[in-house]
């Protein structure tokens, strides 16, 4: 049955609507028949209304409970209580056999009620003691009621029944006509009923004390019922002890007592409605569970919604077992008495289990809803994990590519520095040493050639140096972003103010930020005809924010329409938009964002935010 919604195909063991309608008709007819018999002996309309209300209330709530909890005997018991309620009324009929049966079963409704109270809400007794008390109730009615009815003469003993009817009957079972003996038997019968009622109450107290919060909430209606029953019993006892003193108060007390009698099945109904409300709160559970980031949070949400503080959410572990949110393995079967396990199947085997108070099993639809929430949470968590993993991977690829590209640039610059630059420098040194050693009478053309070679070498060194710096600025690794930006500004033909917070970041972040500024400055100088540039770099929370603003012509091309072309120095930017497009790619590769505002004639403002943990 688990895993199906309440609206889906009925599992075996459910009640068809035909059976419910049939039993409803039986209860209806029984009520009408009982009332007709009751009315025959002169019952007031108010009595009839009261009688019908109580009986039909039991029958109706029984039918509802039966329909909703087909596997639970509580529904049929409530219905039986409703039917038994009308049984005693048949004493108003002039049919001897029916009168006898009715008089015999007059107290049957009390036995059924005791049964109902003791098995609510599970529908079956859980201890031998409970079973004994229930059996005693039926036994008392069957045996005690029979003995009593064998001695019962309605014409003589009319005051011992709630139906005062000397004309009723005659009693088909009457075998011995002895008023004194009947009075004695009747008294014993009633006292036995009182004792049994007290036993029922004590058994219920025991059930209450061992119940969990979830179970107590379910038990509440039966407690209201037992409270009312005890009130009736108390009344009965007082009435037996001093009938004369109370007869005047009888009329006064009848009304509240009647109301409370009707209240009992109504309370059962209310209890059912509360179950519906619980289910409604599953809607809240869905909302809350959607926000529960961890299994422990979900467990807490489930505990609160289901009202079972002992509930444990078990998640499947690698070895096929289950563990609670703290990682403690769960035992199977459940270690705690009175708890059951519900499996949550996501289509890939049971991925989770709910270990909960057995009382929750009385509302399988509620558990089904909770299970559905767990199932959704599990799927959601799985999807989230997959999405995160994919997003990480998707981000990692361009990031690694960029890192590799930067690494290559760094290596290239290093190779130039250690190789060609050093060798050229050495050559320059050697050439410089040559000059002073030329004999004073040397050919002026020779001196000129040496000087030309020297000058050419200097230029080569300078060009090489610019090239190397464009490939990768050594100062960036050496001193960080601030000094690198300052060095960049120092070489810029346009005045640049640099406002850079000191601090080091990951090489990838520093390099990306550097190239953002580099490209923005190149744009400002080459395309925007800027007269001044402002550069700002600072850390805001976990992000490095670099901004470049110029007072140039603005109107940088739309980023999306341009093709990518990375640029690294003032000399290599091809067009204003394409360089920025390349920048946007680089920035997003490190998980950052790039904003460009460039209204025509109003300068350009570029802001990059790069994550820097």
């Amino acid at each position: 049955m688990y895993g199906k919604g309440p609206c889906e195909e009925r599992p075996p063991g459910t009640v068809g609507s035909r059976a419910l309608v049939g039993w409803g008709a039986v209860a209806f007819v029984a009520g009408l028949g009982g009332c007709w018999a009751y009315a025959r002996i002169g019952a007031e309309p108010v009595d009839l209304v009261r009688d019908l209300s109580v009986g039909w209330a039991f029958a109706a709530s029984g039918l509802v409970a039966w329909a909703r909890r087909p596997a639970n005997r509580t529904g049929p018991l409530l219905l039986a209580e409703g039917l038994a309620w009308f049984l005693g009324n048949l004493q108003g009929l002039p049919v001897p056999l029916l009168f006898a049966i009715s008089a015999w079963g007059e107290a049957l409704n009390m036995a059924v009620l005791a049964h109902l109270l003791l098995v609510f809400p599970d529908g079956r007794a859980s201890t031998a003691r409970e079973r004994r008390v229930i059996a005693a109730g039926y036994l008392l009615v069957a045996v005690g009621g029979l003995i009593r009815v064998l001695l019962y003469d309605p014409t003589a003993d009319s005051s011992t029944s709630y139906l005062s009817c000397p004309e009723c009957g005659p009693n088909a079972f009457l075998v011995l006509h002895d008023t004194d003996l009947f009075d004695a038997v009747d008294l014993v019968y009633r006292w036995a009923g009182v004792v049994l009622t007290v036993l029922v109450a004590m058994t219920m107290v025991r059930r209450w004390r061992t119940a969990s919060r979830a179970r107590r909430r379910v038990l509440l209606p039966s407690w209201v019922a037992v409270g009312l029953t005890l009130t009736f019993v108390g009344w009965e006892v007082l009435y037996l002890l001093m009938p004369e003193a109370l007869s005047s108060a009888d009329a006064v007390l009848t009304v509240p007592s009647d109301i409370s009698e009707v209240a009992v099945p109504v309370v059962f109904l209310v209890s059912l409605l509360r179950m519906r409300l619980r289910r409604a709160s599953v809607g809240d559970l869905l909302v809350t569970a959607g926000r529960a980031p961890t299994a422990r949070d979900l467990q807490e949400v489930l505990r609160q919604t289901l009202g079972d503080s002992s509930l444990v959410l078990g998640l499947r572990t690698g070895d096929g077992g289950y563990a609670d949110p703290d990682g403690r393995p769960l035992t199977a079967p459940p270690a705690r008495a009175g708890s059951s396990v519900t499996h949550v199947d996501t289509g890939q085997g049971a991925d989770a289990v709910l270990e909960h108070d057995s009382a929750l099993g009385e509302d399988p639809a509620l558990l089904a809803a909770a299970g559905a929430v767990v199932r959704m949470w599990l799927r959601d968590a799985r999807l989230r994990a997959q999405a995160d993993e994919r997003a990480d991977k998707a981000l990692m690829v361009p990031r690694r590519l960029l890192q590799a590209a930067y690494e290559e640039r760094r290596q290239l610059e290093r190779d130039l520095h250690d190789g060609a630059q050093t060798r050229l420098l050495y050559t320059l040194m050697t050439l410089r040493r040559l000059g002073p050693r030329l004999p004073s009478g040397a050919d002026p053309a020779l001196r000129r050639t040496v000087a030309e070679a020297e000058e050419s070498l200097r230029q080569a060194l300078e060009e090489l140096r610019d090239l190397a710096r464009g490939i990768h600025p050594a100062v960036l690794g050496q001193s960080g972003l601030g000094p690198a930006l300052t060095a960049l500004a120092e070489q810029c033909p346009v005045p640049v103010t640099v406002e850079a917070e000191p601090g080091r970041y990951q090489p990838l972040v520093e390099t990306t930020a550097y190239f953002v500024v580099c490209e923005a400055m190149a744009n400002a100088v080459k395309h925007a005809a800027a007269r001044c540039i402002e550069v700002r770099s600072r850390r805001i929370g976990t992000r490095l924010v670099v901004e470049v603003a110029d007072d140039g012509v603005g109107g940088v091309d739309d980023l999306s329409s341009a093709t990518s072309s990375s640029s690294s120095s003032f000399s290599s930017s091809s067009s204003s938009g394409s360089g920025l497009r390349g920048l946007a790619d680089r920035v997003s590769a490190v998980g950052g964002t790039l904003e460009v505002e460039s209204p025509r004639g109003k300068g350009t403002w570029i802001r990059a935010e790069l994550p820097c943990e």
Partner: protein
Amino acid sequence: MRVIVAEDSALLRQGLVRLLEDCGVDVVGESGEADDALLALVEAERPDAVLLDIRMPPTHTDEGVRAAEAILACCPGTGVLLLSQYVETSAAVQVLARSPRGFGYLLKDRVADADELFDALRRVVAGESAVDPDIVTRLLRRRRVDSALDGLTSREHQVLALMAEGRSNEAISRRLQVSAKTLETHIRSVFAKLGLEPDLAANRRVLAVLTYLRA
């Protein structure tokens, strides 16, 4: 003059040693690293100056800068001349801010010129400062928004450049062929126009001027 040469490129180190020996400098030690061994060598030899490459193993980033600071801190009588491939003033300013005496910063291109190298070495040995003229020229050439530099006369401009190179008053007045008194008038005027605190010793004056020019 006793000098130690620390340069990771063997070729360049060899070139530097030859160049220095040509100038009559006594090279008392060579090192390819800017590590503790270099510091120990300096402490043992107590040379007049250390010629130090800014980019040294293992990371080729700021090892030279840190070694320069360590040497200036441990051996007050030893000057340090830092060599850099690129115009990059941050490192120079960083060292100058900590130890204004006996520190110089030269571009590598410059060392090819024996006279310039020897002149810079001589100055750091004397406890003065030496900043590569190329660096100063570049800093001065930068166009600035609302720059107070525009208000300087050409003579004051020259004075500022020579101060930025770390020259002493005597050297400046000799170079510009003006009297010490006239020079002081120029210097006061420059400082007033730039809004800087006057009457600084030449060493600290370099830092103030460089900081001003880089801003």
